[in-house]
């Protein structure tokens, strides 16, 4: 497959044709947007359609459809960004949007490119995901059957399951980026998220379990075995939590399981290595490039080019193909993630991390697929090494304070470990740490690297994006655990 070759043609057909736009009109708009000398001037066209089906109470009774489109216009003069967007991008509306940016920029100079900017198409070849339409209404019956099967599977697994909600959300986003350097690039990004939430009830106690699958594919990308595994995971989590004991509180060793717990590195390392935080000297890692910030063996990578992962991009939202950026190499801080604006101001180059939630948002440096590379240890030996601590396998998101480097995340599935054995599941507990301090306490890294199941999202300055996170099993010698037990 090649998502790139067809993407630019599809993007032009879906975005420009219906609006009556051609490349000459876009070139003229860009010429005016760049005005008397913007360092960056770009237009980001987007059309997104989204379809949902929801099962509750054993039946699929809700469905939804959404379509949106628009253009974001940006001009940057030595770091001062002016931005406007519009849901209408027929030529007159596009020109109004560009004029709004010029007014905000107070750029009164004559246009440097009064004839407009000649655009060169950039196919952006990639084999990361197919340029498929995930939102086909023809798949409705198929999806409804999947949701009904999830319901019956969950009910059959345990009679204590009293509530099952299952959802599927299919999204098809097509983008076209044009900039004053003459770039015209497009991408078609299919995405489907299937999720289930169950409630278990017994003896007056209630507990929740959840699981999901995210793919850059349509219905045919979801095999029966994966769906069954997802349901089993949600039910098991709810039943474990029903019997959970209060988590201990205080500093102790923690073992994090493979996959989604890699959110640790997303929070503890990744956000602090986004270019904008460094340019503004806000990051706790400011000035530490080239220094050891983690134990030997800790290698953290951001790679937007891993096939089928939800953080992958054929091009980023500024038209740059994604890089593989080694952020931490064997414990030494080696790389930052950049968009065009911050790279330009820091005398660096974009690493293809310029991302935005939609045309109505400004791009900024964001992570793609961020993971800790494999180590040597056997995961069983890592758990066996714990005398008293926590083994956490699933989290419900996390946060970081960029300035202090303090991060936290909350378990939704975890166990108390005593003398190397899992003793009992524990109720949700918040784990906290400080970026480089936690990294220095990484003492064992497993050989079982895995990624999340496709449900990871990242929020920054009000913008939410899909990303991917991953890690092998690992041990951190000292972390603060916030449970209800003293």
């Amino acid at each position, binding site marked *: 497959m090649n998502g790139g070759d067809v993407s630019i043609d599809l993007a032009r057909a879906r975005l420009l044709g219906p609006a009556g736009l051609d490349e000459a009109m876009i070139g003229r708009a860009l010429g005016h947007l760049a005005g008397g000398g913007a360092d960056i001037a770009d237009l980001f066209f987007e059309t997104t359609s989204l379809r949902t089906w929801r099962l509750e109470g054993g039946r699929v009774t809700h469905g939804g459809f959404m379509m949106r489109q628009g253009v974001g216009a940006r001009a940057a003069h030595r770091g001062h960004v002016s931005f406007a967007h519009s849901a209408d991008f027929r030529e007159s509306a596009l020109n109004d949007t560009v004029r709004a940016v010029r007014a905000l920029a107070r750029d009164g100079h004559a246009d440097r490119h009064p004839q407009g900017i000649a655009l060169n198409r950039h196919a952006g070849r990639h084999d990361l995901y197919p340029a498929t339409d995930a939102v086909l209404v023809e798949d409705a019956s198929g999806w409804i059957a999947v949701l009904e099967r999830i319901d019956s599977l969950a009910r059959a697994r345990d009679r204590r399951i009293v509530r099952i909600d299952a959802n599927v959300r299919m999204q098809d986003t097509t983008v076209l980026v044009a900039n004053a350097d003459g770039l015209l690039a497009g991408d078609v990004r299919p995405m489907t998220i299937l999720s289930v939430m169950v409630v278990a009830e017994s003896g007056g106690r209630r507990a929740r379990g959840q699981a999901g699958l995210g793919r850059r594919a349509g219905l045919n990308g979801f095999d029966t075995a994966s769906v069954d595994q997802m349901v089993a995971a949600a039910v098991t989590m709810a039943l474990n939590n029903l019997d959970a004991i209060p988590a201990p509180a205080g500093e102790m060793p923690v073992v994090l399981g493979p996959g989604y717990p890699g959110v640790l590195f997303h929070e503890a390392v990744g956000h602090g290595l986004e270019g904008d935080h460094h340019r503004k000297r806000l990051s706790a890692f400011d000035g530490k490039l080239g220094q050891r910030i983690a134990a030997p063996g800790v290698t953290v990578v951001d790679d937007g080019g891993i096939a089928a992962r939800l953080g992958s991009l054929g091009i980023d939202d500024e038209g740059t193909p994604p890089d593989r950026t080694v952020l931490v190499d064997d414990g030494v801080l080696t790389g930052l993630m950049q968009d065009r604006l911050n790279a330009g101001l820091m005398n660096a180059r974009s690493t293809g991390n310029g991302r935005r939630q939609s045309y109505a948002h400004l791009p900024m440096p964001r992570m793609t697929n961020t993971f800790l590379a494999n180590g040597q240890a056997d995961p069983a030996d890592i758990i066996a090494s714990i005398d008293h601590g926590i083994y956490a396998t699933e989290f419900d998101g996390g946060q970081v304070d960029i300035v202090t480097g*303090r991060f936290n995340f909350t378990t939704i599935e975890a166990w108390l470990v005593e003398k190397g054995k899992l003793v009992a599941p524990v109720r949700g507990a918040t784990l906290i740490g400080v970026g480089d301090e936690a990294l220095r306490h990484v003492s064992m890294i497993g050989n079982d690297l895995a990624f999340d199941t496709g449900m990871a999202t990242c929020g920054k300055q009000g913008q939410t994006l899909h990303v991917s996170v991953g890690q092998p099993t690992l041990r951190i010698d000292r972390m603060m655990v*916030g449970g209800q037990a003293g």
Partner: protein
Amino acid sequence: MSELLTHSESDLRDAAALAVDLAARRGARARASVHHEGIAKIAVRNGEVETAERSGTQGLGLTVFHDGRQGSASTARFDRAAIERVVEEAMLIVGHVQPDADADLPPAQWLAFSGPAPDLYAESPRSPDVLLDAAQAMDAIASETVASDRRLRAGEQVAVATEGVWALATSDGFCRSTQRSNDARWSVMLAQDEGGSNSAFCQSQERRIDALLPAAVLVERAANRARQALGGRTIESRRCPVLFAPHTAATLVGELAGALTGNAQYRKMSFLPDPLGRVVAASHLDLSEDPFEPLGLASGGFDSEGIAGSRRAILRHGVVQGLFLSTFSGRKLGMPSTGNADGFYNLRLTSSAASGDWQAMLRMLGSGLVVTEFQGGKTDPASGNWTQAIKGLWVEDGCVVHAVTDVTLASNLPAMLNGIRAVGLDVERLGAIRTGSILIDDMQLGGRR
């Protein structure tokens, strides 16, 4: 018309009515909601404009009801072709889903065809130039503040203006619209000493510019919060009383209100099952709702089904008096809508217990923890299990001793609500919620061993 808006209320009413009409021609009953907002935002840092944004959002959402089935579709365009597509898509969904006896429009007699509609819009200057002046004024104050304290650095100073219009039409002939405004300012300040750095922010949000906190107050509060957190350190794990500062206390009130929504109740995702008439919080607590407060941030004459809310008690003496119900969630629970299809309106937590201002609350705390900021954590809505990483202050004999960081608090919400000893007179508003600081008798703090 406002300079931020490109569509009028009548444009939106026409679009909503057209969508309902087109659905009716397909034999469906329908409800259409149309919104449009114009936004301007200027961020200034160190004397330079960092970002200047001008944006417009809009959307039309349609829900159709046909043969006991429902389907929803939305678009960002208001032209006839887009609306026809939305009707088509909604009807396609109706053709696939199973019936649900509870999915239908509310009875027409429930609708607020007329009736009080609180002011949600105030004329105020909101052009980008006005915002630029406001952000630059804050930036100038921030620079002066920094000059007087070497530990401080100025972050972004931001001014935002939003104006919006919203229209709702239904097959029962309901067609009303409202105009809204919102002004916000915020200041980010950083503090640094040999022990590390902190950032803090302070925001003011109102429906009219002249009600906003003065720029100097915003900057000073942000600077004080950043300074106050310097020297923060962890403390040993313990059980202790905890005082939630007003802007963190509002989060607890939000958790309580969230558990009383119809959706949480019928989906069994509430830690307060079957709560009507039951004691769920300390007996000195009252919680009231007011949809009609003029220029209230969460005021409204009717919800997105066209049903008006009411001024009422949600909690009286700790006992639940009412839930927040839509027509759908109400039917699932065998009750009528309370006009809360969009959640709760303005809420106010009050207490009959002994209370006082911030200093008095510190004295009531005695020795314990003050929570000034949540850094992250989760509530399990089904069990009420509550866990948070927090920043705060350690207090002894009513006096602040040092800043605290790297600690967690954990409990479960039913115990926390019943353990509230006092609510301060230091009332602040955070969005829909007004509350003073909240003092809870005993919580588990996780820190050093």
